């Protein structure tokens, strides 16, 4: 079958980069576009199975998922042209992931150091001489405005940043656009095969289709030397992931 088992252990992940890194490291791969492409299905499957993420986080997961799909598409269809922005987002993801990997590595070293051999400072002196010494601003007015500042800066609920909302919308658009571009390339209609209402199944189905396109293309180039390159549509049934 196209998509092999989703061997993701459901541990708690600190966000999408953490999950992505875990998937890559489980396969003992280096961080690069090839390994990112390889774990795309696993990543999306995980997001699908864990929809209980807080909204801010699931947005981050979907942003990463969209970039992974770009990488996957590019690796399967080398003549697919990506926009400058798309290429940049791929490079960024790869770079961020390498940084995150380094950070995790360093944080493990920190854990080994933290609290093990503390440099102690002087204890508090209990016999210090107390001299009543307010400053020029120690009055009711300043105290009152100070407490107001304190109250104002108490942490409040954070809302989903607008830029991320924008990116979620553009993810759906991007899936459609990509599907269109690829359908043209292989002379088939993506929309005929998959239900649009379920976003995740569209993504997973889309990736599966790409995989099939690749396999089909390979087989054709081996078997028929001068023949027309053509997809065999009966091979592109809905794969049974669910």
């Amino acid at each position, binding site marked *: 079958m196209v998509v092999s088992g989703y061997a993701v252990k459901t541990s708690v992940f600190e966000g999408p980069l953490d999950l992505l890194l875990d998937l890559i490291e489980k396969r003992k791969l280096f961080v690069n576009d090839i390994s990112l492409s390889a774990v795309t299905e696993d990543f999306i499957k995980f997001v699908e199975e864990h929809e209980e993420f*807080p909204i801010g986080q699931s947005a981050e997961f979907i942003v990463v998922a969209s970039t992974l799909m770009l990488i996957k598409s590019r690796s399967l269809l080398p003549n697919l042209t990506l926009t400058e922005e798309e290429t940049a987002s791929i490079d960024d993801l790869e770079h961020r992931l390498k940084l995150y990997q380094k950070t995790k590595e360093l944080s493990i070293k920190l854990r080994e150091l933290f609290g093990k051999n503390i440099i102690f400072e002087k204890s508090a002196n209990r016999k210090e001489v107390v001299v*009543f010494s*307010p400053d020029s601003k*120690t009055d009711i007015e300043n*105290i*009152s405005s*100070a407490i107001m*500042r304190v109250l104002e800066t108490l942490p409040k609920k954070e809302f989903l940043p607008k830029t991320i909302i924008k990116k979620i919308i553009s993810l759906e658009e991007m899936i459609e656009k990509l599907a269109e571009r690829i359908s043209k390339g292989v002379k088939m209609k993506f929309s005929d095969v998959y239900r649009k209402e379920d976003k995740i199944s569209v993504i997973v189905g889309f990736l599966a289709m790409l995989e099939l396109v690749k396999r089909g293309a390979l087989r054709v180039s081996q078997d028929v030397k001068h023949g027309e390159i053509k997809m065999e549509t009966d091979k592109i049934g809905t794969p049974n992931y669910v």
Partner: protein
Amino acid sequence: MNLESKIEAILLFKNEPVSLATLSNLLGTPRKDLQLAIFNLQRQYENRGIVIVSDEENLCLGTNTELSKLIETIQKEELQRELGRAGLETLSIVLYKGPVSRREIDFIRGVNSGFILRNLLIRGLVERAESRVGERSFSYKPTLELLRHLGIQKREDLPEFGIALQKIESFIQNPLDDANE
């Protein structure tokens, strides 16, 4: 580490006079060896900014008397320094919410208030309150001098006392309905 280093570290950490008996206990070393090590230490610290002050039984670190002018200046400077934004904010929390624990103050302000509290203590603006039952850390409350200086008789006379206190308390009890993480 040699005995001298160990003694020096203990003296720094304790920040108060330590007896030979205590040292002997902590280090498992006979008094005679300690006395020799202390003698050596005192020679090492000759003509330095830090000195070892001792009598027959107790010792502690101190600053060289030649620098007493400098130390006095620092002391004065510490007491005259402006409290600053952070100082006033911490003080206002102690006034409105006191007795309030160090942990609560840190939690309300979202930063560590250790040094600021210490400064408020030596300036006689706040003082330690009797620990509340079950509390491990100290609690702090405003001093009577502070209230007098502010011209109020009790905390309830502070502007908007009720509302402010209520907001603080509800934050402590229920910091964030849905924290993002």
